[in-house]
């Protein structure tokens, strides 16, 4: 089965009002080229579920987001994502604020076909107050109450990986796959962008196959987009673009705002974007961060 498609094809499969999961973590391995294709489209009223970075900031700034399910939105070295802040402080988006691990449990419940997973996470905090649909339940085995984290079912997930083959076998070679396996499993359709498209035989090597974190049946589409995580990182291929993120954050303080950023960088295609940021070779030269 050949699951290759273009970024435009992916966005063509998405509909207004859908719930989208976005893989990665903060400024790390975000499917930014697919996010940019959404920015070029008419898609709107999205519900996003993400360990958020500029993916969330940009989609909020572009008015694409109706509701955000989040535990944080951050660029790490710029702790507060500037456009997410603006959207929150303007009250322009609905939010469901969760704990990081609670979000993982919600994705797991969806992936496993369960209505909820019980946990102690959130007890005694405002998380259980501001999320009206988050219920406390009695345990059949003890006398305590617990939080029932509802399944976070996703219409689609967008994920960026290092390598994939045309059948949707995906490899994350960096040190952490984050929660991407659960984003892939929690969604009806998962669309993956990859830095490198490889032959299926590439995975015959057990060391390569060990870095495949979900089965190809959980991948609906594969888009070959070298550098497609930029300006986020795709460790070990490239780090995140510190200078680009600083300039992006600068636009939030500037009168030009997000429109100014889009004018300078978005372009009509990923090829336009990469030319504006200095080309793929420059992206691949970006140093890995030191924590």
């Amino acid at each position, binding site marked *: 089965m050949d699951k290759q498609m273009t970024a435009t094809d992916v966005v063509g499969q998405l509909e207004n009002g859908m719930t989208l999961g976005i893989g990665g*973590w903060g400024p790390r391995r975000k499917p930014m080229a697919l996010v940019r294709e959404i920015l070029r489209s008419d898609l709107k009223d999205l519900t996003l579920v993400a360990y958020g970075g500029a993916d969330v900031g940009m989609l909020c700034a572009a008015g694409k987001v109706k509701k955000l399910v*989040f*535990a*944080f*939105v*951050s660029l790490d070295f710029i*702790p*507060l994502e500037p456009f*997410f*802040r603006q959207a*929150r*402080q*303007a*009250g322009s988006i609905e939010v469901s*604020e*969760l*704990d*990081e*691990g*609670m979000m*993982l449990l919600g994705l797991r419940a969806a992936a496993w076909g369960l209505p909820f997973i019980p*946990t*102690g*996470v*959130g*007890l*005694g*905090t*405002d*998380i259980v107050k*501001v999320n009206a649909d988050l219920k*406390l339940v009695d345990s059949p085995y*003890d*006398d*305590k*109450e*617990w939080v029932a984290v509802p399944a976070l079912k996703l219409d689609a997930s967008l994920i960026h990986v290092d390598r994939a083959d045309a059948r949707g076998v995906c490899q994350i070679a*960096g*040190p*952490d*796959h*984050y*929660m991407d*396996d*659960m984003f892939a499993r929690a969604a009806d359709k998962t669309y993956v962008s990859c830095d490198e498209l490889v032959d299926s035989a590439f995975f015959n090597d057990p060391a390569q196959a060990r870095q495949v974190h979900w089965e190809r049946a959980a991948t609906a589409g594969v888009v070959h987009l070298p550098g497609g995580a930029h300006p986020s990182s795709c460790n070990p291929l490239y780090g995140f673009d510190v200078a680009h993120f600083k300039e992006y954050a600068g636009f939030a303080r500037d009168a030009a705002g997000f429109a100014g950023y889009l004018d300078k960088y978005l372009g009509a295609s990923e090829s336009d974007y990469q030319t504006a940021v200095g080309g793929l070779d420059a992206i691949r030269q970006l140093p890995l961060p*030191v*924590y």
Partner: protein
Amino acid sequence: MSYSLAELCICAASRAFEGDGEVLATGIGVIPRLAASLAMKTCNTDLMMTDSEAWMLSEPNPLGQRPEGFQQANESWMGFSRIFDNVWSGKRHAMLGPTQVDRFGQSNTSALGGSYQAPKVMMLGARGFPGNSISHPNSFFVPAHSTRVFVEGECDFVSSIGYNPDRLPRGHALSDIDIRLIVTNLCVMDFGGPDYQARLVSLHPGISAGQVQENTGFPLHVAGDVPATAAPTQAQLDAIAALDPHNQRAAQIKDNPPGDPAAGDGS
């Protein structure tokens, strides 16, 4: 011997991990991370620590750019999904710097003022604070002790559970919660007062109990003469210097003041 206030705080904060045994010590921010690292090098060598990315280390990494050829001492993979398996097992102690802390030890990392729908200042979000606080011991570091941080009422948003009877979930006990230590630029506190009241444990050199109370929005339990926070030893200062070769600690407390104003600034 002279030392900076940051170094005094690192040493005082390292003691939070002293009796923990074999748990994952997580310090978020320069001073908490140095405190956890110092504890692992000195008072609790059984501690575990990550590289803040995806690996468990048997030796803490120094902060900032490492020298050419540096190889970190990995002992296992420890990606974020596995962190939660550890958190929920309780074998962890985190030290973090929330924006607000109230009299119950509840903290806020999420939003300030306005309404929840449109906060005046949006911050990080709840992050992992809710799960941390119900699962394992937590300590706080506050670089600028004031009534803006230690608020009079409840936090604007309660990101982590504390010793608030009104919020205690049914069947759970306040004794299940462990807010271990709060280290600030003025003092060390815990919740060892009557009914988990915040208590003054030690005062940094030159600071009075009255000064701390004046900068705290809720009444502190002060029992008798409050001792002075122990000065760093030379061995501790040497360990800190090795863990922080680029002196990032100097930028953590405003104007990098000396730890003992009577003894000079350590530079």
